[in-house]
């Protein structure tokens, strides 16, 4: 029996990857949930906002690298991030101006806004491809690992290794900070309360002297910052590829929904639920069983990985059946 190895194997293959993937989803879901909570529609362009922002960050990173500026062990992209956020925010506020504001003033049904966001999604998608092409791009520099498998084995002498990447650690930290800050902001700060008031009853917010356009701007700003950060961290971790940012949209939505739309804690919980269910349910337990002294015949896999996405959705549906508006009682329009 070899408890330590079993533990390390689970950590290395299940806990750490699922946690960091969960954090990536959560960071994306925070933006989605914020837009839904305040502006009351599901923003399909969020994935492409992530891609667009990350593309800009990459360009700036290249620029910085060219003139020899770096962050040592941390990726240079972090330095470029604020600029990327600023540029993307300008663009997103522009789309709000020319696209969404019109429907807000018309009081269009949320579905119209959703469709408009699909339009924006297509355009941003095309733009990102125009700007940076469709190829896979890696832009992480600095140290890749906090702990690498080889190092870990050398230190501990265990046969199983453990790795923790800088990008994974970064994502986890940033997500925790973002969630905490957003929660505080919405529930404690004046501006945050104004945003919630606006989402609750737009007319009455007006009557209370809240400037709706400011609320909307603020919402877009925060959501953009979250999206670009999420996009950059995801790109650092996995490499940048435009197509993948559309694909990540579905799990992000799943995360936001299962946690309860409009609730930052829900988004984070949702992200982890989706990620852990994908990894844990399809994990073959044979290796662990072997370490624990059993000699199993098969793989001890509940379901093959082909169905991992299906599994996370089954879990999502089950959660919704018992909690129809998500774990943290989200909103619904």
């Amino acid at each position, binding site marked *: 029996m070899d408890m330590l190895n079993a533990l390390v194997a689970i950590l290395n293959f299940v806990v750490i990857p699922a946690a960091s993937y969960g954090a990536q989803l959560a960071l994306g879901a925070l933006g989605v949930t914020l837009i*839904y909570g305040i502006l009351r529609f*599901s923003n*399909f362009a969020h994935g492409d906002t992530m891609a667009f922002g990350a593309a800009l960050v990459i360009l700036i990173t290249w620029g910085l690298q060219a003139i020899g500026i770096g962050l040592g062990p941390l990726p240079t992209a972090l330095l470029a991030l604020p600029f990327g956020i600023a540029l993307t925010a300008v663009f997103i506020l522009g789309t709000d101006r020319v*696209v969404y504001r*019109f*429907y807000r003033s*018309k*009081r*269009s*049904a*949320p*579905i*119209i806004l959703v*469709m*408009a966001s*699909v*339009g*924006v*999604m*297509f*355009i*941003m*998608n*095309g*733009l990102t*491809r*125009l700007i940076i*092409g*469709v190829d896979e791009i890696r832009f992480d520099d600095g140290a890749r690992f906090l702990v690498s498998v080889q190092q870990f084995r050398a230190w501990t002498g265990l046969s199983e290794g453990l790795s923790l990447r800088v990008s994974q650690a970064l994502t986890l930290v940033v997500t925790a900070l973002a969630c905490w800050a957003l929660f505080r902001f919405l529930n404690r700060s004046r501006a945050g309360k104004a945003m919630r008031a606006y989402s609750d009853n737009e*007319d009455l917010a007006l009557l209370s002297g809240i400037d709706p356009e400011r609320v909307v701007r603020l919402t877009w700003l925060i959501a953009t910052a979250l999206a670009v950060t999420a996009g950059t961290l995801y790109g650092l971790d996995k490499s940048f590829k435009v197509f993948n940012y*559309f694909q990540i949209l*579905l799990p992000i*939505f*799943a995360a936001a*929904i*299962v946690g309860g*739309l409009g609730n930052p804690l829900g988004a984070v919980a949702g992200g982890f639920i989706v990620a852990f269910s994908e990894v844990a349910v399809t994990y073959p337990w044979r290796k662990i069983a072997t370490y624990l002294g059993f000699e199993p015949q098969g793989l001890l896999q509940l379901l*093959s990985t*082909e*169905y991992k*996405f*299906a599994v*996370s*959705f*089954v879990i*999502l*549906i089950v959660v*919704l*059946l018992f909690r*129809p*508006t*998500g774990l943290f009682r989200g909103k*619904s*329009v």
Partner: protein
Amino acid sequence: MSNTRQAEAVSPWRAPVLFLILAALFLAEGSFRNALFSGSWNTALAILNMGLISAVMALGVNMQWGYAGLFNAGVVGFLALGGLAPVLVSTAPVQGAWAAGGPRLILALLVGLGTLVLAAQVWRRISGAWRVPALVAVLVAGFVAYRWLFDPAVMAIEANNSARAGNIGGLGWPVLLSWPVGALFAAAAAWGVGKVALGLRSDYLAIATLGIGEIIVAVMRNEEWLSRGVKNVSGIPRPVPYELDLQGNADFVARAAEWGMSPAVASGVWVKLLYAGLFGAVLLALILLAELALKSPWGRMMRAIRDNETAAEAMGKDVTRRHLQIFVIGSAVIGLAGAMMVTLDGLLSPNSFNPLRYTFLIWVMVIVGGSGNNWGAALGAILVWFLWIKAEVWGPELMRLVTGPLPAGALRDHLLGSAPHMRFIALGLVLLLVLRFAPRGLVPEK
């Protein structure tokens, strides 16, 4: 500023005029040859045919969303289920497949179904402390029995001539018969899904159905015994003659010469016209039925339910049942469209069922056309499909226009090289423009 949405008056001529414009677009596509249009009837009709099928899909979504406010984001799943029908009904039987494990497979599926029914009964009948253990016991026992029956049967079937078949095969019946069967498949699934998920609201229902759609497609991709999974089934029979047969038919060749077309072109046009007739008939029949239903107390009741469920419930309308009814009917229509589409393609390729194309694009069609309005949904579907296809040409064309004034150089080359991606930009622009100038759709609900 006002508290409620204002319905701007819509001219009664709007729908006919828009349909005329649409017809003009197709005529232009068929007869003019320039940077925008191809001038080929074959192309025009090919787009039209898929457009008609899209219209049927849009009709199904419109029933669910436009009539009842149910946000079904699992369109692709029901479509795929419908698409299964032509394979199971009308492809030729696979030699030896049935013998290899057919009966055992059926038995396994029955056991699986029975387990679910039993579990539901246990959940309903037993209360108290035994409820959960009993449920778990039933599920576990059922699952074990199911896998014990299922796995060997599947192995045997998949091993049977796996390069060319490896699936259970079809019945070899006429393909038109598979259309209603496709509708039935989708309806059955929708019934089950509806029983479980219709308690959810708006975006929560959307994500649940999205998940269910993904699950259905995942099953179709991975269960090879059913329809060869990702290995695709091709050569699905047709309800219309093959072009090559027509080309070999002297009468037809003579007639083609009369029309002044080459036999190849004429056969293509003729076959597509036949398809268009079939699809058009189905579409018109569905619209007729839907309009009759909508302009009657039933439609009024559905609108009331959509407006305010609590009040409708208090006014004696069984909201749950009506939701289920419309969900099943809408899904059946989507399933029908799926069967039609697979018949037209002659190919079932589960990998091509992706939600962007078959869920969101359909939604775009409905919203652009005007949700709640059948004619609108149909119009939106055909128009958006036309644009989706033409964006392939118009996007790069647009890029050429944009980059025209640029000096030749790296930037221009880069942009021209990226021209295919203008497809997305062009489509997005069109969508935004339509939504801007007709925010409630081209032909809004009255």
